[in-house]
């Protein structure tokens, strides 16, 4: 099939100081091709200057979150046939500064992630040196939020984040949730305090965009709600 691929371009260094779009006509596209395959085709044979991030190419490394026909997706996990259209528009994710073409500044995103203490706090090790025990049910409790690959698709789909870049954003909350609800962790209270401040979890307006955007199908909005509940009730369950 033939595809008209419209790509956002911005590169002040080369004089492209105003955001604009380039359109490439691609012939012989397989409906099962990934959008990433199309971008690679453009870079290889149409315009080598087109810049984007990618690595694993199968949806587990989180490098290539983009807006594809207006929706945040991973370019390597969106197939041409999923889009039901011969015109495909690819743009950078919103709310983070565009550096060049589809590449945005990820530093603020990772800073927010780091602000919620995304690491296990528990220095008690069993005397025999073996594993701490955890029931299957207790492990299952936080399984969903362990899946996060930090691609930023959720945070950059959030209207609150667009209007206020101080908001910690759903990805950071998901990563706090992963520890708050892990029975082995001992610092839930500190994390809840961090998320209870003005840039924290109560900025969420339950738009649900994040849940729809997550390529790992994490129930992001639910995780955010559970963190809110834990703060309000003082109970973690």
């Amino acid at each position, binding site marked *: 099939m033939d595809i008209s691929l419209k790509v956002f371009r911005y*590169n002040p*260094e*080369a004089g492209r100081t105003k955001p604009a779009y380039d359109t490439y006509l691609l012939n012989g596209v397989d409906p*099962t091709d990934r959008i990433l395959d199309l971008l690679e085709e453009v*870079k*290889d*044979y149409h*315009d*080598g*200057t087109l*810049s*984007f*991030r*990618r*690595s*694993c*190419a*199968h*949806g*587990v*490394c*989180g*490098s290539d979150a983009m807006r594809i026909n207006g929706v945040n997706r991973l370019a390597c*996990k969106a*197939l041409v046939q999923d889009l039901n259209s011969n015109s495909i528009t690819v743009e950078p994710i919103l709310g983070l500064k565009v*550096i*060049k073409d589809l*590449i945005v500044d*990820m530093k603020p995103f*990772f800073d927010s992630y*780091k602000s919620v*203490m*995304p*690491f*296990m706090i*528990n220095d008690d*090790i069993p005397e025999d*040196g*073996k*594993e*701490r*025990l*955890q*029931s*299957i049910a207790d*492990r299952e409790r*936080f*399984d969903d939020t*362990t*899946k996060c*690959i*930090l691609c930023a698709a959720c945070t950059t789909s959030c209207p609150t984040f667009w209007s206020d870049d101080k908001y910690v954003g759903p990805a950071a909350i998901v990563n706090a949730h*992963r*520890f708050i609800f*892990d029975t*082995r*962790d001992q610092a839930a209270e500190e994390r809840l305090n961090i998320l209870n401040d003005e840039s924290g979890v109560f900025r969420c307006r339950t738009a649900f965009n994040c849940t729809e955007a997550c390529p790992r*199908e994490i129930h992001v909005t639910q995780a955010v709600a559970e963190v809110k509940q834990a703060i309000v009730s003082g109970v973690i369950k």
Partner: protein
Amino acid sequence: MSNHHQHEVVIVGAGGAGLMAALYASRGADTAVISKLYPTRSHTGAAQGGIGAALGNLEKDTVEWHTYDTVKGSDYLGDQDSIEFMAKEAIPVVYELEHMGLPFSRTEDGRIAQRPFGGHMNKETNKPVTRAAYAADRTGHMILQTLYQQCVKNEVNFYDEFQVLDLIVEDGKTAGVVAVDLSTGELHTYHAKSVIFATGGHGRVWEVTSNAYAYTGDGVAIAARKGIPMEDMEFFQFHPTGIKKLGILITEGVRGEGGVLINGEGERLMDKYAPNAKDLASRDVVSRAMYIEAREGRGVNKEKHMYLDVTPEVVNKYAKSDGRTNPDGTPYVTTAEEILTKLPDIIDFCRTYLGIDPVKQPMPVQPTAHYAMGGIPTNVYGEVVIDEKNTIMPGFYAAGEVACVSVHGANRLGTNSLLDIVVFGKQAGKKAAEYSKNNKYPSFPDDAKENTQKQVDHILNSDGSESAADIGKEMKSVMMDHVGVFRTEEGMAKAVEKIRELKERYQKVGVTDKGKVFNTELLNVWELGCLLDSAEITAVSALARKESRGAHAREDYPKRDDKTWLKHTLAWMNDDGIKLGYKDVQLGKYEPKERVY
């Protein structure tokens, strides 16, 4: 930020090996990690099935069994002292990961869950043993996340999206690296006492691969260009179950949970090739069986692929005929729900890329280039050893897929790569910190950047009459056809000649992007150069080895030849090609014998 930095230990690469090294090195030395990707993008995150350790949580298991299985899996080319070291270290290191917070799946009694994996056997029952500790089918993701979390906690220094292009050596001593900051295009120099390469593999040399775009053999190429030999590069693993054409990995854990390979005639094919271990024979054996079936016209629709079937009916049928039991002795019976819980990501991949549901339909799979057994030679402390006598190069360390200890020999067992990265990442980190405490900074040359600048300028100023994309495709195709699962003298000679022609043509590859900010085109071209070097060393090493062993299967020399070839290859890259040498394998209590599964 100044463009010159000084850190006692510099680690290149932020996958499992690099991060584990960073955690340990940073306890005793000023440490920095340089990575071309954000650390959480590293390819460790794509590993699925598990990490091998004889914890014995579900049935009896021992370090000795793990050692033996790994020696046998390596087709006796692995060094037995190193393998025993790894199998022993496996147990404490897996507990250590749990203590760091890794969310392992759990058994009924709350211990770390374990599943069977190819080539790992219970010596009493002679059936596959539950040795692979796992976190659903995203064990690598959890290891990468957990180690990165610990690095954040311990405030390790990171240079994210900096691409290392050169290693600086002064008077035979490691003195640092040169890297480009991808966001600005500026070259940075790093003066160090110790440098650890944890740069991963080079699977992008082949057409069908499970490997990330980033897996371009940078570490191999940079070290080889500095005169460091590469060990056993002819041994490259093809994983039996990649998604048809795409090569995306379907974990061996699928077969661990009872999945079977079925040919185009609806028969279980491994009955013939590995009557005992069957679908859980080691990877080289299974990949060859699939190739033979396809060649003899028994592929699905007579094509190259087979079916991997994990539908509950098929799993239960074969589990019954195999007499498979649960740890408590009851017959093994699974359900769709159980499969979904244990293999959620695999189900997701199949739905996304194939539009099929693996609990209802079989998955079309073919062997996919997966893992480099060979690489930079090291001892068990990660110290790089640069000749037949294992002479240590001061201050240079390697760990993970880029290194060759050698614990995998001619064929790696599943779950031993996640183990390798944490065991030897830890050792390298400790040793590098210790070395930096006992040694002063070596002198650092004023012209350290020159070699790198020359490489970059060459690409920027080339006439661009050749296309990098075309050269890449031709390389992948010739390596897939002739230096893949099966090999012949004629085919490999053709591959060597072709790679050399491509290296000539590569000199004329240019770029249209002349900018400095995120010049990914320039980076891709530089990486292609690394791939071509990796391909040449691989093909030349393979052509010379006139026997079949592990992943190196020659149709013209179908037998293993211990008399002549029970030795490690060392390959030096110099201006007029590749020079080969050999060194002894460390044997031990396991005498080489015929390998039957």
